[in-house]
């Protein structure tokens, strides 16, 4: 579904619907091509016809899949449009402004290191032909000063707000692979959306069963542990993190917690709610809790949270039944524009 390509490009297949017709199976049919190559040389791996003619216009047969590269930013735009997510207004007055340069055009002056060879060559060739000094027998192109073309750039100021995401996941015995997969997909989209709004976003990962610890990204998504669940341990660790490393005045903090909602005891749940109320909510933009449905969990935790935080727009609660529900859940979390 999603593959990271290079630094920040991902590939989205654009599937097309093909109307069924009586047609030949491709593999037996083969075809006629044009170009170099020995008999027996490979033209590329199977599946489709190799490059079924893409002419300029007209009714060429379409390829079955068209792959389009999109940047994460564009992907986030699409996500935002699709889910009608409100834009996030970063908080904090001391926003850092950085300058970003992009190469946007061509200029006749510039440093030699930015000289655009092809354009320069073309310009020189054009001038020589127009002035009649071009000799096809001895096609030497000598660019003049005026022929030279350079890349030119634009500088755009970009406000930068610091943001922090804390992901917390329950890795107790009752969270199976399927639940983790749901968490992985959902956090990918959350990540994409928030990274779109904040440059320089920091992510911290916490896993917990009966005790909590901070881990790196890799471990976060791949650990499987067993044992009981004490959610308070994770909230405590998270609030410590926030207070120590990321004071709320400078940071836009987001906390996402995923669990199957089966806490150890009612006492612990009470302690959790207290922690959230006093040490987490005052410091974060959003406290989000996603409850993944699991065959083992009672799913009580979300009800307790709902009871205590109903109507607080810094708290987002969502129940995720299966992969299909991820879509709605993202909207639950990000629909508040926090």
């Amino acid at each position: 579904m999603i593959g990271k390509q290079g630094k920040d490009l991902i590939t989205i297949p654009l599937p097309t619907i093909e109307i069924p017709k009586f047609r030949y199976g491709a593999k037996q049919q083969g075809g006629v091509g044009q170009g170099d190559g020995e008999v027996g040389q490979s033209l590329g791996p199977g599946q489709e016809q190799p490059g079924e003619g893409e002419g300029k216009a007209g009714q060429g047969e379409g390829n079955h899949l068209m792959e389009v590269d999109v940047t994460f930013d564009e992907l986030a735009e699409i996500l935002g449009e699709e889910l009608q997510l409100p834009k996030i207004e970063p908080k904090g007055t001391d926003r850092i402004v950085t300058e970003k340069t992009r190469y946007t055009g061509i200029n006749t002056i510039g440093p030699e290191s930015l000289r655009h060879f092809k354009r320069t060559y073309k310009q020189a060739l054009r001038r020589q032909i127009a002035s009649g000094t071009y000799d096809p027998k001895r096609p030497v192109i000598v660019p003049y000063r005026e022929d030279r073309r350079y890349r030119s750039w634009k500088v755009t100021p970009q406000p930068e707000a610091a943001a922090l995401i804390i992901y917390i996941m329950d890795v107790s015995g009752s969270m199976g692979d399927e639940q983790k997969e749901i968490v992985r997909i959902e956090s990918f989209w959350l990540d994409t959306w928030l990274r779109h709004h904040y440059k320089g976003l920091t992510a911290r990962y916490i896993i917990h069963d009966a005790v909590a610890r901070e881990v790196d990204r890799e471990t976060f998504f791949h650990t499987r542990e067993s044992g009981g669940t004490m959610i308070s341990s994770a909230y405590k660790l998270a609030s410590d993190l926030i207070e120590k490393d990321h004071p709320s005045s400078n940071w836009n903090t987001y906390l996402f917690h995923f669990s199957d909602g089966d806490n150890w005891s009612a006492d612990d749940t009470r302690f959790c709610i207290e922690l959230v109320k006093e040490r987490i909510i005052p410091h974060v933009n959003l406290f989000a809790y996603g409850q993944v449905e699991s065959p083992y969990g009672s799913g009580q935790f979300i009800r307790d949270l709902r009871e205590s935080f109903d109507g607080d727009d810094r708290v987002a609660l969502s129940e995720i039944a299966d992969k299909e529900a991820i879509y709605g859940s993202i909207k639950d979390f990000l629909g508040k524009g926090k």
Partner: protein
Amino acid sequence: MASFRNRSLPPRLADLEQEIKGYAKEFGLDFYEVIFELLSYDEVNMVAAYGGYPNRYPHWRFGMDYEQLAKGYEYGLSKIYELVINNDPTYAYLLESNPEVDQKLVMAHVFGHGDFFKNNFAFQHTNRKMMDEMANHATRVRRLIDRLGIDRIEDFIDRCLSLENLIDYHSPYIKRSPSSALGDEEGQRPHGLRNEREYMGGFINPQSYLDELQRKADEERAQKKRFPERPQRDVLLFLLDHAPLEPWEQDILAIVREEAYYFAPQGMTKIMNEGWASYWHSTIMTTRALRDSEVIDYADHHAGTVSMRPGSLNPYKIGIELYRDIERRWNTGRFGKEWEECDSLPERQSWDKQLGLGRQKIFEVRKHYNDVTFIDEFLTPEFCIDQKLFVYDYNDKRQTWEIASRQFKAVKEKLLHRLTNFGNPIIEVVDANFENRSELLLVHKHDGVDLKVDDARHTLQCLQSLWRRPVNLYTRLDGKSLILRFDGQEHSDQKAEL
């Protein structure tokens, strides 16, 4: 789609149009009046998705095509330079953002197409007022949608489109004779050949010959009881005439069929048409219209148009090279008996009879040929080598496509196979009362390539929904003959031999 603002070309382009048109006329191109419209890239994409028409009936596939074109353009992957439709007057669209040299190139290209549309035999039966006809179709379908709801209509259009290629591409050009109405009656003996000398009877009409005639006559009579009498290629027409369709369903099916027939000649002459247009834009530009300062850009874009990619066949490239080859051959007299029989390589290489018939010949060719006959007649072994043509096949062991052969014979056969019947399998209605249960039997004339089975099954489902009774398709898969059957509920296969 919103109707386009009615705009004439800006003066500079209008001047260019006159200039290029003059050159085209000078070379003897013959076209209907050509109306150029200047569109933005987005409008071009819209029109292109509609197959070149500003007005088509609503259907999701147009949106899908638009999406692809728009994405392709926005990501810089593809760009539509030119769009021209077969109509009188001929409409052509220019892209607003194109530089002047491109506009010239496109205009020259368009006059080439215009000439081809007007003169090639394959287009003689097409409706030259298709622009209006398409708009009428759109209105008819929209009315039906208002009456019956978009879901039903769209669903039915989908089904019809699935059968769209089951038409008889050659029927507009010949008259498929209805059964001979010779009132021969049951039991009448065949006469044999005319014979005035009785004693010669045994020699002129031997018994075996008479028996043969008798057998044929019996067969013919038996055939008359079948329905349809002889296999019918135009499956859509057969359904129109004989399937239990509601009036609105008939209406839609007729629209889909008409449009399929209208577009068929363009599919049958893709190589010739694009080749012809490219030949003329190249000729007009390089000998007349091009200014010195435009040479580079022109060369760049022309090269892009006729570029070769390994593993695909560019109709522009093959077409233009074939025309040039023909022109060269007829200019130098490299044809006919003498040329064919000459074995000496040096002599062949310097063969030149100074005939100068090339131009005349290619004008003839553009009138009387379609892709199949064009390739069949003018593809030469020399051309195959020059153009580096090859045949590729799928290698199951290595799971890749690979070059299978560079032999002239193999290339030509494969090319012709891909072009015959527009690259579609040949399928006919053979029996509408199959097994005496009013089931439909179609027969696929297997020519060495199997059908795509999953698609075939889906298509049978569509067919069944029109015919209402079970449908059968006789074909061969992996060397075994069988009948694919869909009875409205489920698919089944059975071994069969016809």
